[in-house]
Every structure is written in structure tokens, then in C-alpha cells.
């Protein structure tokens, strides 16, 4: 990027600076012996053209909307349209969540995002013994289509896009959404949204487990195929690094493992469904974490786009530029928030949100200050939403595209993160791909080690957490918290019983039997799931068919 003459000047100036530095450090030593990012990538004192001398503008940086997309996936980025303000929300009953959705839309939220409770996430109904005490606690409880109808009451399904964070039972919840749209006379080509539907990261990190890896992947490919054919604006998978990071990975691991997961999904759809890569690749979406280290995160986002573009273009030979681009949602890091002096969490989230925006995210969730203590209260969630709005409208960072480009540090860090992530991806390829690597426990072990390392750095004071290992006051100030009514579980169980009592039972059972039969063929299962949902079969009844046919998966490699 620089002429020999410039580089010569850089070196000359560097020598002079080093002499100055030596004198100054002698008088006053630096604060720490070693400076590093949150992920412990060492950071140098200063970056100069020398650090990016091999970077090629056209090849590595370029322009937004054009390969390799380092600077963003649309040509006009936020000057055309802001990112989507998408607040993850869900709690209590379907009616409670519906109310929260209307509140958020009223305050300028532009996309919906659904948090389900754990029984729903794991494919259990609210009356299952394993669900005791969990109903509505960390998301909304959905057992049947009836709940879903309440959830989406008066929400214009053709006017907003909806993201659903759901994994093993994703086909069921998606089918409910499709069924509700159908009932309201809205064509499937008019609705848009995302189901997370990413099981590989569940095996690696979040451990919402239901079926063994192979049938899990089949279900995912079924949804991808169905979406490609009938629901063209739907993102049928959101390949997620978020949870990998929350499980304690480094930024590089988050990036590498997410891309490796993506590779595995594309490969499976190509092999199993024989679809043309360009027919489905444009609808693959991603989901990243934005952690505390400002520059590291920006570099990670930029590297992510560049790497995925190369993977799709060179590895999978996609030809449509829209197959090369990586669109992603970002959530600020829940694991970076602490219970001590909780109001400080607003500041952490602000910095993280800013990094996500500078990194070119397509949509953003900002965590609420009270999330280490409970589900967000209205008060807290409003501040979180306003944080995004202030970033978008007041501070000027959305005026120009990829303002960090050309920073010696950021470009160099982007390169370094990319390089390290390739190393991981190559190792995973050598192991026979992500499925094999997961079976060997490779990513799990790497993450567990990184998590422990980070925690020890905090314990040792090498990494600072304000209010925890520095400026801690011992005094406790707590914001008012959201309470989930204790009577909810009973009400929910009663509603589900009522649905079961009043539905056409023969039809429900027939639909489940048809699904069971389909499992044993290589037919796409989505149409059968749709029928079952419409016959008011419960989520668990459907998932039980799968568990029965494919076996229930128990966590197999535990790395401590």
C-alpha cells in the first residue's frame, strides 16, 4: 500500500521515536508489561504503514457492497438505511410478550426478536415434569398454535421482520409462524424473518440439545430447502458465534468456529438436497457477539465478511455476489455485564454497540443493564433501545461507511484475526470437518481453556472489570426488576390442556403419524410439521416423534 520511499521515512521516524520512547520509559515505566486485547491478542505500542505494507487496497479492503465486502455488504450501508433495532424479548405468557412487542414497536423498534423459555427451547411442553419451575422464566412459553396466535395478535406480519431464537424445535415454531400468516391471509412471499436453527453451535456451546448431530443437520437442511422454495424472504438459519463467545471463547475462536459451522451447513445442503449453491446461499445469515474490546471486535466483523466472501466464492464456487456477502445480526455481550454496580452496564453496552456499528452490522440487540439479575424491565429495555438510537442519530458514526478502514491498527488487527481464524479452519478441515471436530471435543476444549484463561486474568487483575476487581465499593445498588408471575405455570398448563381437549384429536394423531412415517424416508419434513401444527399438535408431541425415531441426544463430550 505504500511506496518504498514512504516506508523508508516510516523507519527513519520510527528510530527517532524509539529513542524518545526509551528515555521516557526510563523515567516512567509503562502501566503494564504486556498489553493485549480481551481475547489476549498482544497489542503493540504503535502501528505504522509497516504493519500493513502487504495489504492491498483493492484485494483486501476495497469498497462496500463489492467483493470481498470487508467494508460492508451494501454499497450505501447506513446512509441508505440504519441497521435494524431488534430487541430480543420474550417473557411470561404469549400475551405478556405480545404486550412488550407492541411497546417496543411504539418506541421505534424496527424488528421483532423472540426469546422463548427453556422448555420451549428444548422441545418440552409446559406440563412436562422436566419443565417444572421454568415456565415463562427466561422467555415466552409456547406449546401450541393457540399460544402463537396470541403472541402475534395485531402484529403486522407483512410489515415487520421477526427473528426467533430457537434451535432444535425450529421447524415447529417456524411452522407456527407460517400457519398464522396463512390464517391471516398473508402470503409466505410477504413475510420475512429469521430462525436461528443452528445446531452445531449448540453442541459446541449453548447445549440446547435434542437430537444427535446427523438428524439435527437433516432437519436444518429441510428448512433451508423449504425456505428456498416457498418462503423466499426468510433466513432459515442464523449461523451463530454469539453463544460460542458467551461460552467463553476468544474473538478468533468465535469467528473461526462460526465460519466452520457455516461451511458444514452449506456442504450438507449441497450434498443432501443437490441445490445450486446460489439458490440458497444469499439467505444464509449470521449472528455475532460484540464484546468489550472495541478494536478487536471491529476487526473481527471486517475479517468475518472478507473470509466468508472468499469461502463462498472460492471454496463453494458461488457466482452470485449475494452468495458471497455475509449479513449478520449482533448482540452485545451478555457475559461482559456484571451484577456489581449494574448501572455501569449501560456504558459497557454502549461501547459494544458502537463497535458493532463500526463493524457494519445489519441489525443489533443491545442488552439491558439488569440482565445479570433478571429479564429486562421496561425501564431498562428502553434505555438499551435508546442507546442504539443515540448512536444512529446523534454522534455521527453512521455518516460515512467503514470509518475505521485505513487505520494501521485496525487493518493490521483485521489481518491478524483473519490469519488466526484460517489456522483453526484448516485444522478443523484436517479433522474431517466440524462434525468430526465436535465429536472429538476440539472446539469445546479450546473454548473451555480460553474461558478459564480469561477468568484467571481477571482474578489476577491483568484484565480489569470495574466494580469487580477495581473501584469496587462493596455497596449494592439494584435497579427495580421484572417479576414473572408465579401463577403463570398453572395458567399455561391449563391453556395447553384446554387446547388438547378441544382439538380434533384424530386429526392431530394422524398428522403425527404422518410425520413419523416421513422421518423414515428422505422426504422434506416441513410440510408434515405444518400439518401437525395446524392440527394443534403440541410442540412436545412433535418433538417426541423425532426423539423417538432418531434417539435423544445426551451431551457426549464434556471438557472441564
Amino acid at each position, binding site marked *: 500500500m505504500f511506496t518504498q520511499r514512504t516506508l523508508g521515512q516510516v523507519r527513519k521516524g520510527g528510530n527517532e521515536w524509539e529513542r524518545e520512547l526509551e528515555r521516557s520509559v526510563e523515567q516512567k515505566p509503562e502501566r503494564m508489561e504486556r498489553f493485549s486485547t480481551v481475547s489476549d491478542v498482544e497489542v503493540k505500542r504503535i502501528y505504522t504503514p509497516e504493519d500493513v505494507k502487504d495489504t492491498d487496497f483493492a484485494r483486501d479492503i476495497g469498497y462496500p457492497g463489492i467483493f470481498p465486502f470487508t467494508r460492508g455488504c451494501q454499497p450505501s450501508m447506513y446512509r441508505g438505511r440504519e441497521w435494524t433495532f431488534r430487541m430480543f424479548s420474550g417473557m411470561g405468557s404469549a400475551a405478556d410478550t405480545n404486550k412488550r412487542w407492541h411497546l417496543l414497536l411504539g418506541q421505534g423498534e424496527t424488528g421483532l426478536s423472540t426469546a422463548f423459555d427453556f422448555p420451549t427451547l428444548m422441545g418440552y411442553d409446559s406440563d412436562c415434569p422436566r419443565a417444572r419451575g421454568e415456565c415463562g422464566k427466561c422467555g415466552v412459553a409456547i406449546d401450541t398454535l393457540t399460544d402463537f396466535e396470541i403472541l402475534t395478535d395485531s402484529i403486522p406480519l407483512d410489515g415487520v421482520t421477526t427473528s426467533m431464537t430457537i434451535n432444535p424445535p425450529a421447524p415447529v415454531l417456524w411452522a407456527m409462524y407460517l400457519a398464522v400468516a396463512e390464517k391471516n391471509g398473508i402470503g409466505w412471499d410477504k413475510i420475512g424473518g429469521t430462525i436461528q436453527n443452528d445446531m452445531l453451535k449448540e453442541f459446541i456451546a449453548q447445549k440446547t440439545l435434542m437430537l444427535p448431530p446427523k438428524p439435527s443437520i437433516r432437519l436444518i437442511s429441510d428448512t433451508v430447502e423449504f425456505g428456498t422454495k416457498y418462503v423466499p424472504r426468510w433466513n432459515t438459519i442464523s449461523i451463530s458465534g454469539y453463544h460460542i463467545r458467551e461460552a467463553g471463547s476468544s474473538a478468533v475462536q468465535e469467528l473461526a468456529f462460526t465460519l466452520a459451522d457455516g461451511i458444514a451447513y452449506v456442504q450438507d445442503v449441497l450434498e443432501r438436497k443437490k441445490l445450486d449453491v446460489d439458490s440458497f446461499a444469499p439467505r444464509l445469515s449470521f449472528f455475532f457477539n460484540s464484546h468489550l474490546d472495541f478494536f478487536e471486535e471491529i476487526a473481527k466483523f471486517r475479517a468475518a465478511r472478507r473470509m466468508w466472501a472468499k469461502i463462498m466464492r472460492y471454496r463453494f464456487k458461488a457466482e452470485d455476489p449475494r452468495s458471497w456477502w455475509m449479513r449478520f445480526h449482533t448482540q452485545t455481550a451478555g457475559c461482559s455485564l456484571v451484577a456489581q454496580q449494574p448501572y455501569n452496564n449501560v456504558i459497557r453496552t454502549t461501547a459494544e454497540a458502537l463497535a458493532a456499528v463500526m463493524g457494519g452490522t445489519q441489525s443489533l440487540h443491545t442488552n439491558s443493564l439488569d440482565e445479570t439479575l433478571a429479564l429486562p424491565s421496561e425501564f431498562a429495555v428502553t434505555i438499551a433501545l435508546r442507546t442504539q438510537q443515540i448512536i444512529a442519530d446523534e454522534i455521527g458514526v453512521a455518516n460515512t461507511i467503514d470509518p475505521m478502514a485505513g487505520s494501521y491498527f485496525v487493518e493490521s488487527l483485521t489481518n491478524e484475526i483473519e490469519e488466526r481464524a484460517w489456522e483453526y479452519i484448516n485444522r478443523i478441515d484436517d479433522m474431517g470437518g466440524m462434525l468430526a471436530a465436535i465429536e472429538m471435543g476440539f472446539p469445546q476444549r479450546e473454548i473451555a481453556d480460553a474461558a478459564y484463561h480469561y477468568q484467571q486474568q481477571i482474578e489476577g487483575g491483568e484484565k480489569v472489570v470495574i466494580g469487580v476487581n477495581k473501584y469496587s465499593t462493596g455497596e449494592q445498588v439494584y435497579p427495580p426488576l421484572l417479576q414473572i408471575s408465579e401463577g403463570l405455570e398453572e395458567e399455561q398448563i391449563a391453556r395447553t390442556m384446554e387446547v388438547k381437549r378441544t382439538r380434533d384429536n384424530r386429526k392431530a394423531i394422524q398428522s403425527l403419524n404422518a410425520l413419523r412415517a416421513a422421518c423414515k424416508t428422505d422426504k422434506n419434513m416441513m410440510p408434515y410439521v405444518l400439518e401437525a401444527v395446524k392440527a394443534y399438535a403440541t410442540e412436545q408431541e412433535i418433538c417426541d416423534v423425532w426423539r423417538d425415531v432418531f434417539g435423544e441426544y*445426551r451431551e457426549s463430550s*464434556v471438557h*472441564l
Partner: protein
Amino acid sequence: MGLAKRVLQGDVRATARLLREVEEELPGAIDELKVLYPHTGKAHVVGITGAPGSGKSTLIDVLIDAYRKENKTVGVIAIDPSSPFSGGAILGDRIRMQRHATDEGVFIRSLATRGWHGGLSKAAANVIHIMDAMGRDVILVETVGVGQAEVDIMNFAHTSLVALVPGTGDWVQTLKAGILEIADIFVINKADKQGVNEVEVELQAMLQMGAPSAAAWKPRILLTEAINNKGIDDLMEVIRQHRESLIASGRYEAYLRERSRLELVEVLKSSLMDRVSRMATEDDYVEKLIDDLASRRVDPYSAASDVLKRIVQEGKF
């Protein structure tokens, strides 16, 4: 009521507590053991060893299932190494067996190797005794690796299983470490993976070279897929055959005698060492002896005889 009595009644809490006391060699534990000893010798003890990650715990999980279907009660001893740095340990074997956690007919105990060297096998023997006295029909013992300590523990098992996996090459090393002699059954687990045949063929060749042809029991090779619950019926059958062959050939008696001899030697060794080191701290008798040795007033053999005499006079350890 004493702990031992409650153990004999099958009391879980008392058994767990006594295991701890024995493991930590607390005073009084030995007396409880003495009460239990006459009630032992009934359980069938199956040892499982093999390289880390070869699927030992998963095998135990499916074996528990199979034994429970036969209405047999099961005890499991899962041994994991202690950290050499802190002396602490993370014991995670039972994660794979958790579906049996609430089954009253299954008692699972995790054991850390701690600082024991030779002592590990003594502790393991005692744990086996207690579970035996508690009335477990079958006791499954998992040890990791194939060092001398593991071989020693396997000596307390009636039937010894060695778990191997295809495609890693580990198994060759396993065999070199002298495991060939003690294994009654080789289990090639993860048979769903590539390279099963190679392992089987090579293992077969190795066994033909090594084993005396007149032996009553020729080590068997079995294929399993523990996670898919495949091959377990056959494994159960061969374990049963091995037990029967032990009894039918009269080797069971010989085996029990051998085991008792081993245990006696172990107890003698560790108790003597223990007593001697206590003497060294309790009075300065040993210190004086050492002074005498150093100044060549006495030779080590006479000094040792002196020590022994003194212990004998006291009449107990």
C-alpha cells in the same frame, strides 16, 4: 448403630461415608472394615481400563443398563487422576452415567488417585470390599491409562476389560505396557469408526504370538458401539462365560487366593511403612538409629531388625 452395620443393610449414606473414611484412612475405619470383611467375596468385579476417551465410562453406562435388566444391583468405582499441582481433582466420569443416578440399584462413586502410589490399589480394594458388603451383585471399576497402578487395580477384578479404539494407534502402546497379560476381554469400542478391521487383525496376531496355548481362557476380542448400545449383549455374554470358565476350571479358587495374597502384601507394605514413619515422628528412636547408622555404629540390616522387633513387641500396627 455403627457404620458397618448400616452398610450391611445397604444404607447409601453410611456406605458413602465409610468409603470416605477408608479412603482418607481415618482412625476407626479399619475396625469397620474388619466387621465387613466376612461379608465380602460375593460380588463379581469387572475392571475396565484403556486410553483416555476410549469410551470406558460410556461402556459402563450401557453395562449398568444391561445388568439392571437382569435385576442385578451394580456398584461403580470411577477413578480419575488428581492434579499433581494442587492435589485437587475434577471427577467427571459419572456424567455419562447420570441417567442411572436415581436408580437405587446403582451406586456410583468417583475416586481421585490423590497422592497414592502403590496405595491406590489398596484403597481401591477396600472400596470394592465395601460395595461388595453393601450387597452389590456386580462392581464395575474404571481406571484410566495403563500404568502399573492400573495393572495392580485390575488384579482385583475377576474379569478385566481393555477398551481400545480404532484408528488412533494408541492401542499398540497399550499392549506394550503389559496389559496383554491381564486382559480377559478386549473391547474394540467405537466400532462405528474407520479402521476396526486393522485393529482386530493386528490384535489377533499379537495374541497368537503371546498367549500360552494351554490357557483355559483365551482372551476374546469384541466390537462395541457404546454410544449406540451395540454389541453389549455379546459383551455381557462373554463376561458371563469368563466368570463361568473361572469357576469351572477351578481357577476361581486359585484366583481368590492370589488376590488375598496380594492384598495381604499390600496391607503389610503400607502399614509397615506407615508405622515406621510414625515411629520416626513420635519418638526419636528411629532418629537415634539413623545417627548410629551414620556413624557406622550399626549396619542397616541390624537396624531394620531392631525396628521390626520393636513393632512386634507392640503387637499391632
